[in-house]
């Protein structure tokens, strides 16, 4: 593993921890949820999960998760992604520029 990858990992863990302790994680999650709901992403996933499970035999949580995961990640609207990424960048900047 290259040095920059493990540095990135350490930074990630640290940012993650600080966001949670700060309450920022919860606030951002709230914002993200409402944006994803407005864009129809949440409802689309709900519909897919339901319709997939209707005909799934045997019904398995792991299968549903697998089927949905990649679609869920790729179908996040670009504008939402950009907005949240900007907020995260801002947070990191504030936290580490002291």
């Amino acid at each position: 593993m290259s040095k920059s990858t493990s540095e990135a990992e350490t930074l990630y863990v640290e940012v993650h921890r600080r966001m949670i302790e700060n309450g920022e994680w919860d606030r951002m999650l709230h914002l993200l949820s409402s944006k994803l709901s407005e864009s129809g992403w949440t409802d689309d996933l709900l519909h897919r999960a339901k319709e997939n499970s209707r005909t799934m035999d045997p019904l398995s949580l792991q299968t549903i998760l697998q089927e949905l995961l990649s679609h869920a990640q790729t179908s996040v609207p670009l504008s939402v992604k950009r907005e949240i990424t900007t907020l995260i960048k801002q947070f990191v900047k504030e936290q580490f520029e002291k």
Partner: protein
Amino acid sequence: MSASPDSTHTALFGEESTFSNEAHPGIEPSVSSDASENDIDRCSHLASVFADPPAKAGIVDKFKTAVAWHARRTHDSLHPAKRRKVSSPTCDTCDQALSRPFVCLHCSFAGCWSEAHITNHLKETGHTFCTCTDTKSGSVFCSECEDFVFDDIIDELHLSTVLLVEEQNTKFQVAKRGREPYQPWVPTSDDSTALKYIATVPCQGRRGLLNLGQTCFLNVILQSFIHNPLLRNYFLSDRHNSRLCKHSDCTCCEMDNLFTEIYSPTNTPFGPTSFLATTWKVSAEMSGYAQQDAHEFFITALNQIHGTCRGSTNISCNCIIHQTFAGQFQSDVTCEKCGTVTSTIDPMLDISLELRSKSGEPATDNTLASCLRRYTKPEKLGAREYSCSKCTKASHEAVKRLSIRTLPPVLSFQFKRFEHKTSGKAAPQKIDAPIRIPVSINMAPYTTLAMNMKDGETGYPGPDAMYEYDLFAVINHEGQMDNGHYTNFARFRDEWYRFDDDKVTPSTLSDCLASNAYMCFYVKRHLDYKPYMKPTYLVARENDIVREQAMEREKEAARMKEVDDALMAMVGGD
């Protein structure tokens, strides 16, 4: 596997009997999401634990602790006054901070889901259950079933624990006093005896409605009433008994008859002829066989039902229509010169939303939320439209802003798709612009309370329970203004159905959402009640009893007097 808003619905509205195939042979049974709520299909591992009181107590306590911890933490992190360091547990396997803690229900282990740390813990220790603390309803993962299991007891515990935390941490805004602790309804021994002899019927009723000649506008509104949980509960509880009602041309009785038909054992389509006839008699402008606007009929019907409902008044009425649909708007006008704000409060039964901005251009990517934002956007009033009472000068620039002051239990939205063009062309245009509506919406950003919080700083307008609504019916219109057809979608629990007059078919959520709504209806997920008050129906019943007893006494006294008079006549006549 996602948490169903209707499991909360079930916990809130009480045990509802499960879907019975016999009563509705013509309708395809839904692949039962009811299975999880049916005792027979309950997770056997959970069932066996719950059968043993000390084991049950252990699981229940841990579950409640986990839920309460998360509820408090959410409240703290969203409430600006309490922005202190929020507790952050770490995973017992990898030490990373847990954004979504999964907690073992047998020991104090907490761990990550995504790296399978929690599931590995369960396998290694033989502990069976864990719970995810950040779901909206109780969900417990059973490692034997390798699945999330849903259980009425767990759901109820989740609801009551979250409610308890909210009660302790939030207060009434104006009166500045605490909330009344929630007490679930418990049947008295009289109630239990009465309930023993009651025949249960399936709580879902679906029947097509025959088109009586361009009456699809009537049918879609009636279907929206039929699937409206508050109206359904009112009429199924026999609160307006058409056989005892003394009104003539009573639309409220028509509603009672409608529900009787819907919940009768037959499920073939029927024609709402007497409803239509009564509507015509009461509102002459609705009569005739021409196509009417569904929204106009909706408002007319609401007013008719209100008028014939027991206990309806003209000021702060408490009839079922107002209890269900009535909210309030607040209009704030700020004078630009002196800053005085004049507020007016107006009642409303529904919200009509524009699809175009003031300049007349259709907005791109219209969603319900964007329409609501447009609706509550501050708007400049022209110099001639307003004169401030405080300033000495006559006309000023002012800014007007609408917001929702009180949210009703059922929110009805109408999208203004029919525009009467005043410029030259006589024919009114229909706006077919697509609108995206969500399955659930949080109404907090559009309320007076939230909008009045300091700009920039996001205030805490109260727990989400006050603001969350779930879609239950959508009305669609195809074709042109005077030459079109109405159809609708409606939901029972988790399943969506499409209604086209007499044709009822199972449908899906995505068909409903893609259908381009004309009107849509949302029901609040958690109902609120005034604290420490006797319910009005109980007060009414007590008054009735007092009145009946007084009448009995009068009758008895009159009878005694007759007997006395007869005796006197006999004695005197000697």
